[in-house]
């Protein structure tokens, strides 16, 4: 049995070592979720990768889709829940910005069957453009929010989320962070429930929030969130552990650091662990803090719990010393660690912060940033565009592997906001008389590039749109998208290609294979000649190097002069300098042959026998 099968079919009491995200997937299966939707985004990606397999192979959940973007995903899942099916939508934190519009209305409309909105936040920006704190969305929308601390809780609390959702007929926000999503830990499996669909009764006076309806539903929502507060008071998700006159209030992954820190400092402390973090249990908190000598609040990112607790203390006239981020004892940015929490607690308690503990310094090592993989077609595409266009061009980048063109040797990323922003940014730049090019990946194009392209045509923006089509959503782990002809459940479907839109919109376009440099340069030049006012579009189409088998490798022959044109124009990690010449690390080479086309001396040639691959394995220790 592989892990996916165990997640789908494992029985009650079985123990598995699961990533937080895999545990969430199992939690959804145990809760009998029928419809699950997402747009892939790290740190949430493995939830979808797991459900894609469990739904297609084991029918759990019955329906799963990779939607074109988070807003679409949200609407599909939310409405399926209104129609009576337990449903879930999940995404990374910035994905909820895309879905924020339906989120706000869904709080007014409410739900029928249970509906859970999972957001995976990314403190420390491991794979994101910001570290926004999505707990604000619970406050903004007035929706109950749960936060697990580890894999076991990530699974178990999904069930709680659905129970609360159905009790209140409200969507529930389920917030995790990178260190919960990407920590593997022990999980004891529970029972898989089956959920009967609920009946849907048409009710425009509730489900269609025209102003007259919305005004009434706002009052209903306020009433519901008061009921949610009662749940928050009662639930064991908000509980006190340990004892002592120092009170620590914490939630999510920070709970782990707090537990380890108090053991390390060796203090007696009473912990209020909050699993339901909106609305907060006012009475429980009041009772917890009133007999404490001091209260320390430990939470990553914004001081949201802290602000509420300070307000609760003030309104209830509780005189207790409260410490947290407002005293600068804990940092506002980045993820926490046991060390950071130890330091913060010590500062709050006026303890000596380490009697000059010997700090070991990290050795100086060359930076190893994420790079294009060997044979990545994006390297060729960027090389081609760079060859044809002036270096003064403004390069508008987008979200995907190709953002890595910000690095050497390309340095072709001048501006970026979010998914799909490249075309919009190029349009704005072009207004300042800049020549602007938008680079956008295939999945990102379908996600939110489409309305931007329509705007470029409609408002006659003079931009070049470069679609880097590698036939997959590579960055997040090769999920299918509308261009792949395959659904999230592995079913065949219509192949939708970016150039179809250029055709329909009546703008000039070309489609070319970036592995053929000469033909692609010609295609781009031809397009630029045809391009009038308004946008033009070129598709560089070649599948991601990681999902293509290696059929040959390339080697450098004795014609190499050491000009390093190959390295300087492509930066392929398989190409290295060695004793004044270029070499190809055959254990990395994917056989794309692009370097052989940029070599001015015909010094790069292909070899077909796999024995060479073995011989030319290179270790720089020699």
């Amino acid at each position, binding site marked *: 049995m592989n892990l996916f099968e165990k997640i789908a079919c494992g029985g009650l009491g079985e123990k598995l070592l699961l990533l937080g995200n895999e545990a969430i997937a199992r939690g959804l299966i145990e809760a009998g979720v029928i419809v699950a939707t997402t747009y892939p985004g790290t740190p949430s990606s493995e939830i979808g990768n797991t459900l894609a397999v469990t739904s297609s192979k084991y029918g759990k959940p019955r329906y799963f889709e990779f939607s074109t973007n988070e807003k679409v995903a949200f609407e599909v899942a939310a409405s399926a829940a209104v129609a009576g099916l337990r449903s879930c939508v999940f995404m990374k934190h910035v994905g909820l910005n895309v879905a924020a519009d339906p989120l706000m209305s869904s709080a007014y409309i409410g739900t029928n069957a249970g509906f859970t909105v999972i957001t995976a936040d990314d403190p420390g920006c491991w794979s994101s453009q910001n570290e926004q704190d999505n707990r604000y969305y619970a406050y903004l929308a007035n929706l109950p929010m749960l936060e697990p601390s580890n894999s076991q809780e990530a699974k178990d609390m999904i069930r709680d989320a659905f129970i609360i959702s159905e009790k209140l007929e409200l969507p529930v926000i389920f917030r995790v962070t990178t260190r919960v999503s990407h920590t*593997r830990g022990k999980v004891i499996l529970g029972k898989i429930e089956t959920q009967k669909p609920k009946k849907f009764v048409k009710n425009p006076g509730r489900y269609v929030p025209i102003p007259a309806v919305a005004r009434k539903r706002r009052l209903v929502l306020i009433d519901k969130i008061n009921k949610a507060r009662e749940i928050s008071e009662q639930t064991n998700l908000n509980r006190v552990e340990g004892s002592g006159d120092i009170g620590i209030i914490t939630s999510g992954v920070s709970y782990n650091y707090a537990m380890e820190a108090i053991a390390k400092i060796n203090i007696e402390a009473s912990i209020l662990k909050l699993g339901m973090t909106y609305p907060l249990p006012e009475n429980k908190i009041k009772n917890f803090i009133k007999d404490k000598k001091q209260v320390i609040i430990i939470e990553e990112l914004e001081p949201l719990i802290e602000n509420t607790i300070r307000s609760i203390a003030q309104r209830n006239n509780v005189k207790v010393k409260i410490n947290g981020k407002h005293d600068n004892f804990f940092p506002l940015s980045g993820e926490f*660690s046991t060390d950071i929490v130890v330091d913060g607690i010590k500062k709050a308690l006026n303890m000596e912060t380490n009697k000059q503990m010997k700090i070991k310094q990290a*050795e100086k090592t*060359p930076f190893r*940033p994420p790079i294009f993989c060997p044979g990545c077609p994006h390297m060729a595409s960027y090389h081609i565009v760079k060859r044809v266009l002036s270096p003064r061009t403004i390069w508008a980048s987008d979200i995907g592997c190709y953002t890595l063109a910000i690095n050497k040797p390309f340095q072709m990323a001048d501006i970026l906001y979010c998914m799909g922003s490249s075309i919009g940014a190029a349009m704005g730049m072009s207004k300042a008389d800049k020549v602007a090019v938008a680079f956008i990946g295939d999945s990102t194009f379908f996600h939110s590039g489409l309305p931007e392209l329509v705007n470029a045509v409609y408002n006659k923006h003079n931009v070049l749109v470069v679609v880097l089509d590698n036939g997959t959503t590579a960055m997040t782990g090769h999920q299918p998208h509308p261009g792949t002809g395959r659904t999230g459940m592995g079913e065949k479907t219509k192949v939708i290609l970016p150039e179809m839109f250029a055709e329909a919109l009546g703008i000039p376009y070309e489609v070319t294979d970036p592995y053929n440099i000469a033909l692609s340069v010609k295609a781009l030049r031809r397009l630029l000649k045809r391009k009038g006012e308004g946008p033009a579009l070129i598709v560089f189409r070649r599948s991601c190097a990681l999902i293509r088998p290696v059929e040959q490798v390339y080697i450098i022959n004795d014609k190499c002069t050491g000009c390093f044109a190959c390295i300087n124009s492509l930066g392929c990690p398989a190409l290295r300098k060695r004793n004044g010449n270029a070499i190809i690390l055959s254990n990395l080479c994917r056989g794309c042959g692009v370097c052989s086309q940029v070599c001015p001396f015909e010094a790069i040639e292909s070899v077909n026998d796999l024995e060479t691959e073995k011989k030319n394995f290179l270790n720089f*220790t020699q």
Partner: protein
Amino acid sequence: MIDKYDVIVVGVGGMGVLTSAYLIAESARFDGYDVKIGEVHGMAQRGGSVIAEVRLNKEKVFSPTIPRFEADLMIGLELTEALRYSHKLSSSGSAVINDYLLPPPLIDDYPQREAILSKLRRQINDLRLVDCYGIAEKIGARFVVNTVAVAASKAYSFLPVSNKSLLNALKSIFSDKKAKLNRKALELTLKLLGS
């Protein structure tokens, strides 16, 4: 069973850092430890520097990451990365390092093997350099290099897990075909390096 043991596994994206960490954690779980692995996904894996933190505790592991300077063992699949993270080891920490150097691309003045090794020797209490690729090539599958490194750390009696659990963990995490090759790698390494 010891009270607690913290391992960092480091290397270059694509070498099998996460799988090694999984193998260690799964074996330790079979031996009755509570375990957690702090992983790094996404951007960090594109040929970049990768670290996974494996925590074993006979009671309960809380934090997914290891407090500073408290790692008991480093398994380094590549020399530059071993150097990058070596300061995370405790003063009594040990290391098993693959004798393999893959400098970051586009950098001309990268540290050479001897310079890296002398710095590592200064930092690390007990350092074992292993030609993991050499052993993997004897199996005929270079990709088992990560399992060779884990097996080496067991052969040198650093990793506090049983051989039986290591074998069971291989079965649990790999497909049949891969499990077979990794089992060969484990057994050969234990035979070659074991006392």
